[in-house]
């Protein structure tokens, strides 16, 4: 099912995110999905070689999720493929019945584990969204007609609401909306007041936004993100909270409490939540319960 149908019905859309393994053995991942996510989230994002680290492909993992009855969101970046490969993969996604995609520019190759690779960036998130619109209208990017019924996707994009240059991000968000974005997932939010302020400006675009959550695992992770991850700022009092009771934090309880609290404070201002557990999929049920989002 397309996420757009859920948004139109007024559902508060809950999605999670999994990163494929560096290998092709997915039994463990599928087990986590069956155990902790099935029946609790509307759909699952599959990352596309996230952080430019080479892994199993997003498209294949999406197909595997569809096969166990989960709705998949195919993340597709412009880092590794030119427009010919991107179009071809989108048609492959349509063949597999994948209906939801998330269009990204992608991290630079130098950030990953194969930094010698050629960065492609033939297209970017905006022109990729526009390209999908063209495929849906029945032609490829150059205007050559497709055979048969064209594909149809619910097209998503991302935005950084707590970026230190949020105005530049809003300009890009507007370009993405114009290029056809039907929903947004955000970078991780740790400052609800900043997110709410952002939403006041973003609501003019009339496109649903899912609040991004990255479960804070410990103070070290929070500090690392502050120093290294764009668009993320964990405030000092939250880092103190993670330090206060080491055992509680280690058991994941503090991270769950913080995540649920952020969702509760923001949920009246957005249309869904997207939880990036980074291996802590087992904590998602507790977060949803505490946030009052249990299905």
């Amino acid at each position: 099912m397309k996420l757009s149908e859920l948004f139109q019905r007024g559902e508060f859309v809950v999605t999670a995110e999994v990163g494929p393994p560096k290998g092709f053995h997915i039994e463990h991942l599928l087990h986590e999905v069956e155990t902790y996510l099935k029946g609790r989230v509307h759909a699952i994002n599959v990352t596309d070689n996230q952080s430019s680290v080479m892994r199993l492909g997003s498209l294949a993992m999406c197909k595997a999720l569809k096969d166990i009855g989960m709705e998949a969101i195919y993340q597709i970046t412009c880092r590794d493929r030119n427009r010919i490969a991107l179009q071809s993969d989108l048609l492959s996604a349509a063949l597999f019945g994948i209906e939801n995609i998330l269009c990204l520019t992608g991290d630079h190759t130098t950030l990953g584990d194969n930094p010698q690779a050629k960065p492609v960036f033939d297209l970017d998130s905006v022109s990729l969204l526009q390209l999908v619109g063209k495929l849906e209208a029945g032609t490829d990017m150059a205007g050559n007609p497709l055979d048969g019924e064209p594909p149809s996707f619910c097209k998503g994009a991302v935005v950084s609401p707590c970026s230190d240059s949020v105005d530049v991000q809003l300009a890009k968000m507007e370009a993405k909306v114009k290029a056809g974005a039907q929903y947004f997932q955000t970078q991780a939010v740790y400052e609800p007041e900043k997110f709410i302020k952002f939403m006041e400006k973003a609501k003019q675009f009339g496109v649903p936004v899912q609040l991004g959550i990255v479960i804070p695992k410990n103070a070290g992770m929070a500090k690392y993100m502050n120093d290294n991850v764009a668009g993320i700022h964990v405030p000092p009092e939250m880092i103190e909270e993670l330090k206060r009771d080491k055992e509680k934090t280690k058991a994941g309880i503090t991270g769950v409490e913080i995540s649920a609290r952020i969702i509760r404070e923001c949920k009246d201002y957005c249309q869904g939540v997207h939880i990036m557990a980074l291996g802590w999929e087992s904590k998602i049920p507790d977060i949803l319960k505490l946030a009052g989002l249990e299905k």
Partner: protein
Amino acid sequence: MLITQLKSKDTIEALAKGKVFIINCHGCKEVYFPEKEADELQKELKAKADVTEITTRDYICNPENLRLQLKKFEDKVEQADTILVFSCGVGVQTVAAYLEDKRVYACCDTCPLPGFQGVTPLEFDCGQCGECYLNYTGGICPITACSKSLVNGQCGGAKNGKCEVDKNMDCGWERIYRKLEKLGRLDTLKYPTQVRDYSRPFKEEK
């Protein structure tokens, strides 16, 4: 070796708003400049727009040289609403940085030819992409100022105004946005989605 080609007459005429000051650069021997075509186009432009000066200089890519060469035109430059630059991409960027409060527009696309690339100062760089974007981006080149050469705005990788690839490098799109903000021209960013044409400059214009 570089080749500069004129942008289309329609494009250039659309840029020529208000009082127009035109700078040609006939500096480098390494750059082929379409002198005759530029001259004809500028004559036509003079009949249609309020062109206050057409000056042909050399090595405007050298900021100090540029400053000295524009000195005698101080008043006209000050009064101009638009500065049209007929030069390679480096020249346009140097003028745009020097006259940072002015609307400085590129009238040429710069294409590469194999071989010696000419002597350019380190401060600016032209990707010789053959479809100059400087008119959309406040005279800051997105091809060379952005690590990903993005042409539709900032990615999610900038932190504290710096690029995800190098913490010492300013985010090109942050610079572009701030420049346009300063010029009161953020509306420029609402241009249609751009897709680069990698068949240039090997394609015959229709």
